[in-house]
């Protein structure tokens, strides 16, 4: 059952859709430009420094200055690059990231297109972006780009699985695949209470999907070069960066809606759109601050450690979660059973981090070899001062 009306109410649904998309794209473009601003400011604060301060008050014109700089850069393309793959890669990453927002309800009434299976649509579309990485890696005709592209594709595919499994756990609890219905389900208690494990796995997997540190193998390392984007310059490179931020917004919104209750909790749908929008923004900001916080705190994982973490730790735990959820649904146990099983599994996941580190017996601490003083400072004789010892 659909409660909402589309965002802009003109009679023609097709024109509705187009206007909604255009309006949304413009807002989003400015939004991600300013995402770079507050990322730099917040991460700087975590590091004893100020972010941009000189371009405009509080550095607010910095993203605009960056955009101008990138627009006026020389547009290079390697001579041996595969033309179609090289050009198409940028769009293959940018467009799916934006397409996700078509199905996302910002408030109870603001929705570009009400889709009955919106969660399925969102996950399917956001999973398309790895093709762009492969195209960029192949089309750049550079061995660093190729290796980076392969790694990026492997990472993205690997972390899709725990992401989807965690969300399937949430779907099982709310009995609906529509993000709108899932938000409405959470009118008294947000889903994080019933599925803490799903929340934690979603958090970790979404950092990997967005390719932020500590999972930023494609963009950070790759033989100390730029990775997949090494041959792109100017506006194309900035489109890659912005698509990374758009993805970050997308997953933050998804997490805010599915696990934190979106605009429904705690006030319900009776309040006006202002408060609902504020709640959405606040919950999304919590996720984004968490992403920035994690970026400033952790080293990067090695690619093989990253893969083994996804396949050996996250997937078994999320499968266990689905098994227990099914058990609870079939035997019609009370809701508190969700909390118990999921809480235990979360504790198990936290403990598993120990096993990654400590393979075998615990590490011996450093030996400290003591050195004792064998001489003393000679007392200065009253007649002579500070002479030889």
């Amino acid at each position: 059952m659909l409660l909402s009306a589309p965002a802009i109410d003109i009679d023609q649904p097709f024109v509705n859709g187009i206007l909604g998309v255009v309006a949304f794209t413009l807002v989003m473009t400015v939004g991600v430009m300013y995402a770079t601003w507050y990322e730099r400011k917040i991460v700087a604060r975590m590091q004893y420094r100020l972010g941009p301060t000189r371009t405009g008050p509080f550095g607010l014109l910095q993203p605009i200055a960056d955009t101008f700089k990138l627009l006026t850069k020389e547009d290079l393309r390697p001579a041996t690059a595969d033309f179609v793959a090289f050009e198409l890669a940028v769009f293959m990453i940018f467009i799916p990231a934006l397409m996700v927002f078509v199905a996302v309800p910002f408030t109870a009434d603001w929705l570009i297109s009400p889709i009955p299976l919106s969660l399925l649509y969102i996950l399917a579309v956001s999973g398309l972006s790895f093709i762009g990485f492969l195209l960029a890696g192949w089309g750049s005709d550079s061995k660093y780009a190729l290796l980076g592209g392969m790694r990026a594709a492997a990472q993205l595919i690997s972390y899709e699985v725990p992401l989807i499994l965690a969300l399937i756990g949430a779907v099982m609890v709310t009995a609906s695949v529509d993000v709108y219905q899932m938000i409405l389900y959470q009118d008294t208690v947000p889903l994080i209470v019933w599925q803490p494990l799903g929340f934690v796995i979603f958090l970790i997997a979404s950092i990997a999907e967005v390719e932020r540190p500590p999972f930023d193998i494609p963009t950070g390392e790759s033989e100390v070069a730029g990775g997949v984007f090494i041959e792109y310059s100017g506006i194309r490179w900035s489109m890659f960066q912005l698509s990374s931020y758009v993805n970050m917004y997308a997953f933050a919104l998804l997490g805010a809606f599915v696990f934190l209750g979106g605009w429904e909790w705690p006030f319900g749908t009776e309040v006006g759109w202002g408060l609902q929008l504020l709640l959405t923004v606040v919950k999304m900001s919590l996720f984004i601050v968490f992403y920035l916080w994690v970026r400033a705190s952790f080293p990067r994982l090695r690619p093989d450690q990253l893969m083994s973490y996804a396949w050996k730790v996250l997937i078994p735990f999320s499968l266990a979660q689905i098994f227990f959820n099914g058990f609870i649904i079939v035997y019609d146990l009370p809701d508190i059973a969700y909390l118990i099983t999921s809480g235990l599994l979360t504790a198990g996941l936290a403990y598993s981090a120990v096993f990654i580190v400590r393979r075998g017996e615990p590490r011996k601490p450093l030996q400290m070899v003591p050195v004792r003083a064998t001489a003393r400072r000679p007392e200065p004789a009253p007649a002579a001062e500070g002479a030889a010892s």
Partner: protein
Amino acid sequence: MVAEHERSLEVVDIPINMGPQHPSTHGVFRMVLMVDGEKCVDVIPHIGYMHRGGEKLMEAMDFRQGIGYCDRTEYLAQFSAELAYVMAVERLMDVQVPERAEYIRVILTELNRLSSHFMFMGAFGIDAGVFGTSFTYAFPQREYLQELFEEVSGDRLMYAYFRVGGLAWEVTDNFVQRCHEVLKHTQQGIRDLDELLTKNEIFIARCQGIGVFTAEQAIANGLSGPMLRASGVPWDLRKDEPYSVYDRFNFEVPVGNYGDVYDRYLVRLEEMRQSVSIVEQALEQLPAEGPIVAEKLPRRLRTPPGEVYSKVEAPRGEWGVYLVSKGGDKPYRLKMRSPSFSNLSALREMCLDQFLADAVMILGSMDIVLCCVDR
């Protein structure tokens, strides 16, 4: 048919060039890694980008002019380099350094060890991928130390403060109090870095079991300093062949067990704490007044003919100065035994069969400084 396909495909090792300009600041060092998939099969280091002919230049400088050049040969542990040089000349000329000068030398050298290890912590965090947080936690502490050194010697990086027979000039009046202030800040900084990195599971996963070097391999390759101690060899020049007044302090020398990158990090972290303890003891024992230069030193320093090798425990290892003099006021031949050069020669053996991402960590854990490698 599969066999035919396999014969037509050729498998080659890819050379990956980590050129003279690095994102992780170790200086101008070039490393060519031959990579088979993800494993390194060969490492070819190229050095010499910073060679300035230091040893030859110092043959034209007398024993006061050369001290400024020693700073530039090891620009992160300057006082250790200066100390080795003036100790060599003092040993040749048989000069007794007064007590107060010795104590101030030790205090400044240990504070310099702290600032060098802070630099290591910052740069190592960046190698691991922490995006600058460890760097900005370590560098304010280095800044406090550099401000103290500027108050005493006049310069923030190239101190040129030691002289043959003692120090160049007297320290400031509030030296002891300023040292205590600086030590408070550094202890806070050590705690911060400890909390940020040491128990972080991702950091441990990156560092544990990487670049393992046994004690026999370490001795065979001529390593020294924290790299040798992390491999399990309890050799520290301040303990085994004490120079200056190091035989008057109680401290501990950290020795590792496994010889991997994590042990080297832990050894350096612990050494910072021990340096703080040595400085506190030295500040207590410091004579309140006394001469700072040996008495009756001639204006032009002439050494008798002879040769001497003097060594100190620099933050990177054993820094040695081999001085050959034929009389006169300039050395005939001066060789500086630099720890980074010897440590770097073990890079190939350490990096074989390691992942590519680990090669960066291993290079970072060696804590090389290119001015020392190239002189």
